């Protein structure tokens, strides 16, 4: 799949932003006043910034509001509802903390649930797709949620819990890669089933429909950079998990914490790039490119 920058920025930043909102909603850390304002401002910048970036990959962004209508069947529509609910609930809850020094626990829990719901619905947009066997697994929501929760813990300054959550997310990431590498083969979809010609013999793509490229090849048959996949996986794991864990074990300082957060953010971005770049859409089989 084509790793569109808008979608990578969206899922990386929003995941972290909603992860932080979830921790704030549960009251970790239990901040009020200006400190709370700072925490909420960072969380909203990440969450809303990511959502804004996602509209850049729409062909007709001016009609984006229509995406709220089909929540009964569409995970993308459910994501829109969850994101809006989370942002509104957490804004009211945050206003209470910042301006009234009052914590409304029920509102916080609901906001936290909606925040995690947003991350979950985002991941289900990918996990539901049978056409991309690498994504079509419960491990996809597990990865998105564990990264959001671990990243949120890191941002929320949960220095005792964050290392363990990061290591858990790292383990899930490894499982995702391990399973993903065999997913297309295990899916049973091949050139033989795609063309229905497998009963006659071995099928080979002889001529593509056009001499030039097209939307399908640009969007679904992205193969650039696969040869660096192993190196990029190592870089992602080090930046996203190992370096933040090491920095968390060191005596606390705001500078080290900032480095840990930035390193984690960069690592998640690399992991998300790989998430798209390595994903094989079965339509590539029609072009003999898989």
């Amino acid at each position: 799949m084509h790793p569109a920058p808008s979608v990578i920025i969206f899922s990386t930043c929003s995941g972290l932003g909603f992860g932080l909102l979830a921790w704030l909603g549960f009251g970790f850390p239990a901040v009020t006043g200006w400190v709370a304002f700072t925490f909420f401002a960072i969380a909203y910048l990440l969450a809303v910034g990511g959502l804004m970036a996602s509209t850049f990959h729409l062909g007709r962004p001016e009609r984006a509001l229509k995406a709220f209508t089909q929540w009964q069947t569409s995970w993308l529509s459910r994501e829109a509802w969850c994101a809006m609910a989370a942002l509104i609930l957490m804004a009211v809850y945050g206003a209470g903390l910042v301006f009234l020094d009052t914590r409304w626990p029920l509102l916080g829990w609901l906001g936290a649930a909606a925040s995690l719901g947003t991350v979950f619905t985002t991941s289900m947009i990918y996990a539901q797709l049978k056409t991309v066997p690498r994504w079509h697994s419960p491990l996809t929501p597990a990865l998105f949620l564990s990264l959001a929760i671990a990243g949120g813990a890191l941002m929320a300054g949960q220095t005792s819990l964050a290392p363990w959550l990061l290591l858990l997310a790292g383990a899930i990431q490894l499982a995702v890669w391990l399973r993903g590498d065999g997913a297309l083969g295990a899916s049973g979809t091949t050139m033989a089933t795609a063309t229905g010609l497998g009963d006659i013999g071995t099928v080979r793509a002889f001529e593509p429909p056009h001499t030039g490229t097209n939307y399908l090849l640009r969007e679904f048959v992205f193969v650039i950079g696969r040869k660096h996949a192993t190196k990029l996986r190592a870089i992602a794991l080090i930046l996203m998990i190992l370096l933040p864990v090491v920095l968390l074990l060191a005596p606390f300082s705001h500078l080290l914490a900032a480095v840990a957060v930035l390193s984690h953010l960069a690592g998640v971005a690399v992991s998300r790039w790989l998430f798209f770049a390595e994903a094989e859409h079965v339509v590539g089989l029609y072009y003999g490119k898989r």
Partner: protein
Amino acid sequence: MTRLPETTQRKLGLVIDLDTCVGCHACVISCKGWNTENYGAPLSDQDPYGADPSGTFLNRVHSYEVTPLADSAMAQLVHFPKSCLHCEDAPCVTVCPTGASYKRVEDGIVLVNESDCIGCGLCAWACPYGARELDQAAGVMKKCTLCVDRIYNENLPEEDREPACVRTCPAGARHFGDFADPDSNVSRLTAERGGMDLMPEQGTKPVNKYLPPRPKDRLDGQIDVLAPLLAPVAEDARGFLGWLDKTLDKI
């Protein structure tokens, strides 16, 4: 509404005969022509006369080489037109966040309401067949409409009330009809020739069927009948040619 209908009254679709298709791409051109000039946004081209041309097509013809498992059999070239299969369990419809994509209850055609489409591209991601393409100029999703503006169009002569690709195919490799009727031309063709689904394991239940190529005639035996007659009759040249042969050998 992106909830799929439980059943549709009719199941309109195509039968594509892989044995008959000659790979001339006439269906591709007539499809692009009709669908650019009629229903919905035109099928745009980008850089059409430049170095890197590309464009939106609702129908594309691939070609595959099939090497039989038995050594004695000859390899086959199969031309393979591919367009929307109007699946009964269409994954492209249910993922749509705006309700722009829908499957019609009355005839099973899968359509896009372009004024509701936000161009998110998720339906194209959900389609295993590459049947949907996001038009780069209009920013909305384009797909085969089964020429819904031809098949019911009473302004057209009766014989033209079928999809443009079917109407134009010079080989008669494309057939249009109602799969819900067991006696229709397409149902009978599918039954007689073993019409098949593409990627059945994806669970999309496509309506369109593909007829596999008929087994090739075997060449052994036929050659032997003519072989004695084809054997060279003048191994030793005589006369002028004999003189020429000898002279050239000497040079």
